[in-house]
């Protein structure tokens, strides 16, 4: 990627009432979709501008502003070299602190006019100014965030200290810890203003004019900025509660949020310079951490690589146009699909089920969801009605399927039923209509084999909940044609999902890894480890959900079904768990239950679970589970189920929510030595940031 250097451009405005005002524009000369970022050259230009302004006694005020739609989105993280020395890493922090501090030390009123997106070092530079205006959302500053913890870093250019002193420890925690850990949630101008991080919230149309006017009025003394008094002291309760919340999110997997919390707490006691030096040291620790390296890897994977649609046949293979869609089934999953397709394609979607009551239930669900969206103002009531009543329709026959461009089936996971459905579809659908299957475990070539044209079948496996998890596994069956495959990728892109190309192998990619993970867990329990000890030890690694919570969410019956599929293929590696079988037989839907003392495994489940008498340390449990996962990932790659470890990681990040700071899974397996121990090789022998 080309590197676009941002410079600070200095212009003077001779104000008739307030005198000479320095207007400093941050601009990289590119359109708004290439945002301003801080780098070495940008700091040099800022310092040059400061030299000029400091040495000009006529300058009466300073205003910093971005280019249209973008203020500044912080350091360019892809340009940070994790292999740098720790001393160099400390210097990164100092470079920002020293340059920004010069703004704070100017003897004239300074105002940051936050006209557009501000993140990281963009938010931070604003904090060194005497005053801040922010452009109202929507259309102004719609993204205001300190996302460093999301990427395994801490705000290292004053964020932890200045937000705490300016707003409060609560605000600092929200912005620096809570939001980044909440799927990197962004604030906007309104929230920033409410949090006390801007003095004025101004309409976008005349934002820069009005900011200049405010600065003029401050210089002449016509206007005074009032702020409420802030106590930067963090109570012990707040500290402990936040720590507990972080523990619940990342367990011991990530360090950054804990270190950020300590920096925020320290702000009340440290001088500014002491606080800045603490930031420098912590930032350097984080830059050198495996979590940061993994996060950069994950960021690149999901933000850049995935957008190129790796695995799609070459561009020359044009996918079919989609103007009508069929869904077989009207259950929850099918209804969610119908809803998603209708919204993204804005074309007719017809749902078929075997009984009218099932169809009615599916349609009712769709309409309820659309109604909710309309109520929240996310679509007009008219569109919701049109989509729910005109676009999405239901049937118990195949009427209306003759002109569908693709049909996706979400019927019962039973090969015979699926073969029958596809056979019936082949009778009614036009020859170029694609048949997609959402199966999570069945053999897709087998599913297609009785068709006259099996090349039209392709796997299109969503992850539950469809609205939350962005992954779609696209499974190429033996005879799937290139154009069908290309169309499947285009469909995934259109519905804003991340596709990964997977070979037609038992349980495909993500479920196979999850089941290997589960298998490691069951092994420990079978041999005698305490249920809750295992659940906690595995959760401690930083997975978004403890294994038992996940099993409850997926449903033990489905977990067992996938396990049986894998068992049929590889009985030695995937034994069917007796315990799991028993609890499914008892009709249990959850493993965990609330007891008087907290959460524990349902005693009935324990009873039906044959266990040995071996005891485990926590570390032994972790080792066992991760070795098992490493072994399976190795086989997945060797069998060519996916083309690259990057696909494995894209899969587990986007399909199972595995954390950025583990890089999905393969970076972590490499970093902790599991890959070498389990398979005698690293998944990334050239390091994580090697380009494909």
């Amino acid at each position: 990627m080309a590197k676009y250097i941002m410079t600070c451009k200095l212009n003077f405005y001779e104000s008739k009432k307030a005198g000479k005002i320095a207007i400093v524009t941050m601009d990289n000369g590119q359109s708004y979709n290439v945002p301003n970022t801080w780098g070495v050259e940008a700091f040099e230009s800022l310092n040059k501008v400061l030299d000029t302004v400091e040495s000009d006694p006529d300058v009466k005020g300073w205003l910093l502003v971005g280019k249209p739609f973008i203020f500044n989105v912080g350091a360019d993280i892809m340009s940070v070299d994790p292999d740098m020395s720790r001393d160099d890493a400390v210097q990164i922090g100092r470079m920002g602190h020293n340059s920004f501090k010069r703004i704070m030390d100017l003897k004239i009123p300074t105002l940051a006019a936050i006209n557009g997106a501000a993140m990281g070092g963009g938010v931070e530079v604003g904090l060194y100014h005497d005053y801040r205006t922010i452009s109202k959302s929507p259309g102004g500053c719609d993204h205001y965030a300190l996302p460093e913890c999301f990427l395994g870093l801490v705000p290292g250019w004053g964020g932890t200290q200045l937000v705490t002193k300016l707003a409060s420890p609560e605000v600092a925690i929200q912005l620096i810890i809570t939001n980044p850990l909440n799927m990197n949630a962004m604030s906007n101008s309104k929230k920033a203003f409410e949090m006390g991080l801007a003095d004025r919230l101004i309409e976008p149309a005349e934002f820069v004019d009005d900011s200049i006017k405010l600065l003029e009025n401050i210089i002449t003394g016509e206007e005074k900025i009032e702020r409420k008094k802030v106590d930067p002291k963090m109570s012990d309760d707040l500290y402990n509660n936040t720590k507990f919340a972080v523990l619940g999110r990342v367990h011991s997997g990530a360090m950054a949020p804990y270190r950020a919390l300590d920096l925020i707490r320290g702000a009340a006691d440290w001088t500014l310079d002491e606080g800045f030096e603490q930031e420098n040291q912590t930032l350097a620790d984080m830059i050198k951490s495996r979590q940061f390296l993994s996060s950069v890897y994950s960021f690149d994977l999901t933000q850049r690589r995935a957008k190129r649609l790796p695995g799609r046949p070459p561009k020359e293979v044009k996918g079919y146009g989609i103007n009508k869609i069929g869904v077989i089934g009207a259950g929850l999953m099918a209804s969610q699909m119908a809803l998603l397709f209708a919204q993204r394609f804005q074309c007719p979607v017809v749902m078929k089920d075997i009984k009218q009551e099932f169809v009615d239930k599916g349609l009712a669900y769709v309409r309820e969801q659309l109604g909710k969206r309309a109520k929240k103002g996310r679509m007009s009531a008219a569109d919701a009605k049109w989509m729910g009543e005109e676009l999405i329709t239901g049937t118990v026959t195949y009427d209306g399927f003759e002109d569908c461009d693709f049909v996706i089936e979400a019927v019962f996971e039973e090969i015979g039923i699926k073969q029958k459905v596809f056979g019936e579809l082949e009778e009614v659908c036009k020859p170029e209509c694609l048949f997609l299957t959402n199966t999570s475990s069945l053999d897709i070539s087998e599913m297609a084999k009785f068709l006259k044209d099996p090349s039209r079948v392709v796997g299109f496996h969503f992850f539950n909940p469809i609205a939350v998890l962005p992954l779609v596994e696209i499974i190429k069956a033996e005879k799937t044609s290139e154009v069908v495959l290309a169309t499947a990728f285009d469909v995934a892109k259109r519905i804003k999902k991340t596709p990964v190309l997977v070979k037609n192998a038992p349980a495909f990619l993500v479920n196979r890894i999850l089941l290997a993970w589960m298998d490691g867990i069951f092994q420990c329990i079978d041999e005698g480890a305490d249920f809750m000890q295992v659940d906690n030890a595995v959760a401690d690694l930083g997975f978004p959900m403890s294994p038992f919570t996940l099993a409850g969410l997926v449903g033990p019956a489905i977990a067992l079904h996938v396990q049986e599929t894998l068992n049929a293929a590889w009985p030695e590696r995937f034994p069917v768990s007796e315990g799991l079988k028993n609890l499914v037989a008892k009709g249990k839907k959850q493993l965990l239950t609330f007891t008087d003392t907290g959460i524990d495994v349902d005693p009935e489940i324990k009873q039906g679970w044959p266990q040995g008498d071996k005891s485990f340390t926590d570390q032994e449990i972790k080792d066992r589970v991760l070795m098992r996962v490493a072994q399976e990932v190795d086989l997945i790659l060797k069998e060519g189920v996916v083309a690259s470890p990057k696909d494995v990681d894209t899969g587990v990040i986007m399909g199972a929510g595995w954390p950025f700071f583990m890089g999905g899974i393969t970076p972590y397996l490499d970093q902790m030595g599991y890959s070498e121990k389990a398979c005698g090789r690293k998944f990334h022998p050239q390091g994580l940031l090697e380009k494909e």
Partner: protein
Amino acid sequence: MDLRDAYFVDGVRTWFGKSRPDGFYWTTRADDMVTKVMKELFRRNPTVPWDEVDDNIWGATTQVGDQGTTMGRTTVFTAGLPDKVAGVSVDRMCAGGMTCQAIGASFIMTNSADIIIAGGVEHMAHHPMGAGADPNPRIVTEKMVEPKYFNMGVTAEKLHDWMPEQGEQTVSKEESDQYALRVTNRYFESLDKGYYDKHCVNMAVFTPNGWVVANKDQQARRGATIEGMRNLKTPFKKAGKVTAGNSSGLNDGACVSLIMSGAKCKELGIKPKMRYIGGAFVGVDPTVMGWGPVPATEKVLKRTGMKFDDLDIIELNEAFAVQAVGFMKHFGMKLPEDPRLNPYGGTIAVGHPLASSGVRLSMQLAQDFEMNPKAKYGLTTMCVGLGMGGAILWENVVGKDL
């Protein structure tokens, strides 16, 4: 006075930029400039119920891109007016804005409206004259207009030669240069006294060199001398008379005015500045389009039953000095300077963003009236490409009760 008469209440413009990469507005949208002057108009007139505007009427010559999409309507949104306010775009080239005022006044006088926003804009950097135009080939093949006269400078050269043929007095190059110099000097004198600050609004604009404040007319050059003027090239004709010094330039700018009914002004206690007496538009030979103001002025005087001598102040848009001097000679005004014509500077200094200029004339005339309470009647008039003239007759009502 009739309460169904239409009144000019107020006007605002941006400073006019040069239509070049180093001009203020090179990377600023025309409709953002429109939004800016509208919002400033709102601020300056807080007692006007802006939600009740009947129509937002905008003139622009090239109605594509940032001047397209029926800008009169889109700027209702960008300036924050409610959906119920209607909007329309109008094109009569240079007289676009002036035509908007005439249309708006007519709406009011026929009891179809009470509050009208009428303005003009031209971003000549984004929309060079004639860009994207596809004139009917018949105009050329059937010799309706010789193609060289699509260039306005060439028509100005012809005007020099044409006037004597028509029995009008000759206008020499020296007279044009003298006129241009004097109108420029008057401009700077007035500028320094703050005349232009009263109806111009600063606008922060993003440029390739960062944000700057557009706070002056970029066209005008201080310290011009007659010697310098004499030595300029005549780009439209060898040994010609029209130079960059005695012509207006290529500019970007937006001008807006507020036109209201007498009834509405009275109801709200708003004191308007001018009454709209009448307007006239006429066609002339397109090869001498600069002559337009003469027949337009004669027409509006005739239709309103007034005489040229009734006029106390005339704001004439001199796209070229030759037409101003020709106008002065035709109506027997004093040369080289007549205190009634463009008393505080004119287009050659201010600049001429085509469709916006007519509205600028009106806001200057209103200010002239404020400064000259004895003045009773005034005229805004201008020439138009492809051979037209426009004129509006106004009555000074500054300080008068309705």
